[in-house]
């Protein structure tokens, strides 16, 4: 019995795992994800549903909560472990968006700033995948400038707050049990800056209206504009301290960047594997097309780009897990991964000739998913701003 189903890709990847357990995690997740494969995700998208079967397998095995504290149902590992889980799914052709949101953003923020009660209520479910929390920060009129957020939390006389405002691009809101909402909770100071607070709002709270965005992404997760119209937030649903929202959100932003890099790196690997297999087997003249350097070099170049970007992501995860400042490395990792993935996919599509544009080959339908990582969760330009200012010490440009 020689099984090919579930076999890892034959392409040699740089080993970024620093322990036999991480290697075992990688091969286990790879096998699980490849037993579903890209065909599964395509079906799920077509049927307009969520990848529930895979999600629940990942949750039951503890893979969605590898990085969360053990006392709240997590695995007690780190972002390096979660990045392995995310990358291996994407490398199997299954970029799972919800992992980048609920476990990667909401998980660490709650673990760092939630009360014991909030942690006990939410973390075990986030770790098992039974609960999902979406992240609602971006607004149409504020965009990348978080200081301009206008969604407002007004204290109510009897305790708690009332939320009013509008967000856009809140991914997966319809399948989420709660929304992590960033809102201004104070009057603006003389520079026009407002202090922000962070709230966990159950999605069935009256006053929440979701409007689906007609997006180009072929993903199970849908994208939403959300209107918060006199939404009542209970006193125990504020996360951490009032007016400290911005600082607290940072607990989830580096993990989000690392997670995003891991998806993009996985997509890059998936594309290179597909391109390489095709180049090795497709023959139109005397030799397989992969014998032509014009075909082979772009794939080799992409392999170098994706591997470099994996090393950078692993480094960022290591810094984060060790409790060091991982901001610079996480942003750089996301930047490189977004470019490496888009390049790899573009080249893999080119290698496939006309088939590259047929949905049957599972490449062109990934295009906007990969392309998105150049824009979200933070745009390339903002990362360049950050690097210019913080790494190079140049004057602040915005």
């Amino acid at each position, binding site marked *: *019995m*020689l*099984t*090919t189903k579930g*076999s*890892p*890709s*034959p392409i040699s990847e740089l080993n970024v795992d620093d322990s*036999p*357990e991480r*290697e*075992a*995690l990688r*091969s*286990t997740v790879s*096998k*699980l994800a490849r037993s579903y494969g890209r065909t599964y995700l395509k079906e799920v998208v077509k049927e307009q549903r969520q990848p529930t079967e895979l999600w629940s*397998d990942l949750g*039951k*095995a*503890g*893979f969605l*909560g*590898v990085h969360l504290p053990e006392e709240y149902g997590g*695995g*007690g*590992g780190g972002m390096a*472990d979660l990045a392995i889980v995310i990358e291996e799914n994407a490398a199997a052709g299954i970029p799972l968006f919800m992992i980048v949101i609920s476990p990667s953003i909401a998980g660490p923020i709650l673990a760092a700033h939630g009360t014991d009660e909030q942690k006990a209520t939410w973390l075990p479910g986030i770790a098992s995948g039974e609960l999902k929390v979406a992240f609602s920060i971006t607004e149409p009129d504020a965009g990348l400038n978080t200081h301009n957020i206008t969604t407002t939390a007004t204290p109510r006389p009897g305790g708690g707050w009332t939320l009013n405002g509008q967000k856009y691009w809140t991914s997966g809101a319809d399948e989420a049990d709660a929304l992590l909402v960033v809102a201004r909770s104070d009057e603006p100071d003389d520079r026009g800056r407002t202090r922000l607070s962070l709230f966990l709002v159950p999605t069935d709270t009256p006053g929440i209206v979701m409007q689906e965005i007609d997006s180009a992404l072929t993903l199970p997760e849908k994208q939403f504009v959300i209107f918060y119209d006199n939404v009542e937030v209970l006193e125990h649903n504020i996360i951490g301290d009032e007016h400290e929202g911005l600082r607290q959100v940072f607990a989830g932003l580096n993990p989000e960047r690392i997670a995003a890099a891991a998806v993009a790196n996985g997509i890059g690997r998936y594309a290179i594997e597909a391109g390489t297999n095709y180049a090795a087997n497709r023959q139109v003249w005397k030799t397989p097309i992969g014998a032509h350097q014009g075909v082979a070099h772009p794939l080799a170049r992409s392999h170098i780009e994706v591997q470099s970007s994996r090393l950078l992501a692993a480094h960022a995860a290591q810094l984060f897990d060790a409790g060091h400042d991982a901001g610079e490395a996480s942003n750089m990792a996301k930047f490189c991964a977004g470019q490496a993935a888009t390049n790899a996919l573009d080249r893999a599509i080119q290698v496939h000739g006309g088939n590259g544009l047929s949905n049957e080959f599972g490449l062109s339908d990934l295009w906007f998913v990969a392309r998105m990582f150049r824009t979200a969760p933070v745009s390339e330009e903002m990362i360049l701003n950050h690097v210019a200012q913080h790494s190079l010490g140049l004057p602040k440009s915005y």
Partner: protein
Amino acid sequence: MNIVVCVKQIPDPAAPQSLEAGSHTLDRSGKLILDDSDAYGVEMALQLAEQAGGGEVTLVSMAPNGETAGLRTALAMGAAKAILVSDDALKGSDALGTAKVLAAAIGRVGADLIIAATESSDGYTGTTPVQVAELLGLPSITFAKSVAIDGGTVKVDRQTEAGYDEVTSPLPAVVTVTAGVVEPRYPSFKGIMAAKSKPIETLSVADLGLDGGQVGAAGGRQVITSVDEAEARNAGEIVVDEGDGAQRIVTFLENLKVI
């Protein structure tokens, strides 16, 4: 209920393979992984131990270079401990030599039931487990598609070409399982982390009280004299359906005398 599972660690079937010059044996110098065939045995053993309400699952493996990666996978699934026999003297072992080693290692455990796969993925002679049974003086039942324990006996549905036989045997016994017997679990993250600290006892041929001349190339009764390329298969016939597709397939199958 103490169960021993024989698990073979093999070169990754997805990676390119090569034969060693001279001996024509598979190059086993790289990293070895758990044979997929043995994941079924491990799962079966875990389920039987659970159903029996206690007892341990012990792994036994013979592999070169002190390899434990495949054992760690099976420990991550839930087995309690492992015995690895690794010794340069084992290089060039044939199935009988392997069986001697496995039998000696199993003898140290005191098992109620010994499970192996029907055949391995790389050598696939399917002869090792029955030889182990013979050496231990135990009954053996092969091709199990279901296994149940009932007091001091094991009940097996044994796959045959025509259907299956219902076989009952007293314990201890050796049972080989097919891929259909159970669906192996994926190791969980907790399982992977716990496997790190589970005991693996590594033994040499001498530790087992075996004589180097009985095992390995020295004791081997099987020699691979030459290896030839498998004959290329003829391309299949493609039947294009022009309304008569079904009839043409029926005719084709009739010619083969399969219907």
